[in-house]
């Protein structure tokens, strides 16, 4: 298949184009705009026959997605930051209604103050909504995961919505080569969506009922159950994608970890910085590796533990933060620490916040971060979450 240069947003739009969903309801927001702009081009130039509902807000975007998806239609949308927060109420309804809506997020910092640049906090705030949450390291992954997500979400055991993150500007607006697939590939790979009880006239279903204490509890458990089943489905889907494209993905990925004495733990585009740093440090003889969290929800705890169990020192680096979570309760760090709890000593695990609001974290800073962790570990020091590069 050809490799074409494109921005991350363009890659997502191209992926949506080959999928040719039934309905796309979306509203523009920086840095997601290119996705909806390009997709609008495809619609108006007849390259897709998707019904594009150009709504008046993100709240209505997600609401229209819920309505469309309930009919059995294949549905795509995209947003970021404030737009995602405006959808927040409906995200939970989408998941609890078991609607496999696929949503790309050009991850952006959350106001205030208002900032348009890359940060993963927006998508991490969806953590408890029931959505499957994937992150991309580069534009190829954003492209692949946009297509893959339909298979994961629509899987009969799962039937959950899926969010695919790509760092705002860092990926969304940066040009990279993307190996693309064509319509025929997607026709073979992605069969029409199957839905047991679609909302169509001949099928008098009642959807979205009032559920009181006698049933609500069990219905919530079913969403948990679907998330648990996704733990099996997602690796299978990644494998199948690998067999078809040669690009193999895992929910938790390791890089140079075999003999590592230290590993960075990152998500999204930070994984690229971490790997580049690992390459440099390896050349200097340092035994370091990197771990990438591709699938944030459901959390692959066992897979994560297996990845880190032999690495004595870990440095979590998050382009996100949680107010008041200063000790170890940052967004990703709290998952890491709770996975380690009861399993191993986690004294030498260090949590970092970095790059908020799109601030760069260049390789020298990553190396310094590593040196600090190494030093603290040698002294067996327990550290609070570090704000890397914070000006006084």
């Amino acid at each position, binding site marked *: 298949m050809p490799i074409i240069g494109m921005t991350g947003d363009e890659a997502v739009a191209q992926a949506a184009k080959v999928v040719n969903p*039934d*309905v796309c*309801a979306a509203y523009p927001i920086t840095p997601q705009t290119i996705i909806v702009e390009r997709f609008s081009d495809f619609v108006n130039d007849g390259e897709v*026959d*998707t*019904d594009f*509902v*150009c*709504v*008046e*807000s993100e*709240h*209505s*975007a997600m*609401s*229209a*997605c*819920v*309505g*469309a*998806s*309930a*009919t*059995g*239609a294949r*549905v795509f949308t995209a947003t970021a930051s404030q737009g995602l927060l405006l959808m927040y*109420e*409906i995200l939970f*309804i989408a998941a609890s*209604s078991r609607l496999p809506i696929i949503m790309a997020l050009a991850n952006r910092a959350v106001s205030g103050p208002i900032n348009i640049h890359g940060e993963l906090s927006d998508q991490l705030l969806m953590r408890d909504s029931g959505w499957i949450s994937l992150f991309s390291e580069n534009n190829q992954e954003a492209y692949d995961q946009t297509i893959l997500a339909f298979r994961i979400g629509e899987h009969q055991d799962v039937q959950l919505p899926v969010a695919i993150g790509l760092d705002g500007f860092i990926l969304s607006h940066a040009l990279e080569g993307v190996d693309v697939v064509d319509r025929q590939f997607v026709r073979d790979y992605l069969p029409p969506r199957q839905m047991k009880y679609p*909302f*169509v*006239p*001949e*099928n*008098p*279903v*009642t*959807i*979205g*009922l*009032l*559920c*009181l204490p006698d*049933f609500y509890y069990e*219905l919530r458990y079913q969403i948990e159950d679907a998330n648990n089943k996704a733990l099996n489905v997602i690796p299978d889907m990644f494998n199948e994608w690998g067999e078809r494209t040669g690009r193999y993905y895992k929910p938790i990925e390791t890089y140079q970890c075999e003999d590592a004495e230290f590993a960075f733990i990152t998500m999204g585009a930070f994984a690229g910085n971490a790997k580049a740093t690992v390459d440099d440090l390896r050349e200097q003889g340092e035994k370091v590796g990197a771990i990438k969290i591709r699938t944030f929800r459901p959390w692959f705890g066992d897979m994560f533990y297996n990845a880190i169990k032999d690495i004595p020192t870990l440095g979590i680096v998050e382009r996100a933060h949680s107010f008041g979570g200063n000790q170890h309760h940052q967004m990703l760090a709290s998952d890491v620490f709770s996975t380690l709890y009861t399993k191993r000593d986690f004294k030498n695990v260090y949590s970092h916040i970095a790059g908020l609001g799109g601030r760069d974290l260049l390789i020298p800073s990553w190396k310094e971060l590593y040196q600090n962790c190494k030093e603290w570990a040698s002294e067996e020091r327990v550290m609070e979450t570090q704000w890397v590069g914070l000006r006084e």
Partner: protein
Amino acid sequence: MTEAEEFSTKYSNLVERPTYFSGGHRLCAGCNAGIMARLVTMAFTRPAVVVQATGCLEVASTIYPFSAWKVPWLHCAFENAAATASGIEAAYRTMRKRGIRSKDEKIDVVVFAGDGGTYDIGLQALSGALERGHDLLYICYNNGAYMNTGIQRSSATPRLASTTTSPAGSVIPGKMEFPKDLTAIVAAHDTVQFAATTTTAHPRDLIGKVRAALDVDGPTFLLVDSPCQRGWRIDSSLGLEMNRLAVETCIFPVYTIDRRTGKEEWKLDTPSRKIARRPELKKPVEEYMKPQGRFRHIFRRRDGKELIEQIQVFVDRKWEVLLAKCGY
């Protein structure tokens, strides 16, 4: 001949019509929202689906695992019924385009929402859906407050009504603002070919308008006056009587804005037309307010007459404007 012309609203025919809203729901005795739901579904002659905003009609008709609906019914949230219906309608359009459903099939998409879900929190979603021109009928049943949550004021609540967030206080006598003119706001969207008001006490008018609206290809709107026995502090038998008094006092005129022919025509429908032709039939607003407990405090106040007169002036002005628009 269109289906609307074939469809007769003679009572002899209406009694034969099926209804897709069954009894056994848990609405209050005499609730006009339930009457409305039954009447509306009697106008269904084609495949139809119902989308519902959060509210009394929603919680009382679909308590899991029961449902009062014999047509597909979907509820998403409070403020987004119009947006949710937009997505449903868009999906049906794609299915027709792609041959998944028959190319010339018309599915009637009907939205129900209360005044809270329409005048207030759902106004943006409604405006968006109307502007985009989705093929759906939006029905707002107006009971003049957030009745489901316990009678809190909305922007449809009439001035001076006592609600739990605009209580009849010793200083402020209830809600001080006049209600918003929603039908005019809807009509300001030129995509709307048919917008009308009606009441549960005028079933032939209501059913006929539902059928006419459903035959339009594009967004249509109905505002239904829907008394709430609990919120209005009236006996459960008095809902329809309040409908009639609302029309007879011209507080709630029954009219249609019709653009189906390409021209714009405002016309008063039978119950209000009678009053336009014989103005002596117009009753003072006091007759509407008197039986309702939500206005009781006004009649006990020293300045009560003055306050009621202010309402009369407002209603008269609105009525005069409407008469002029309807060519009287």
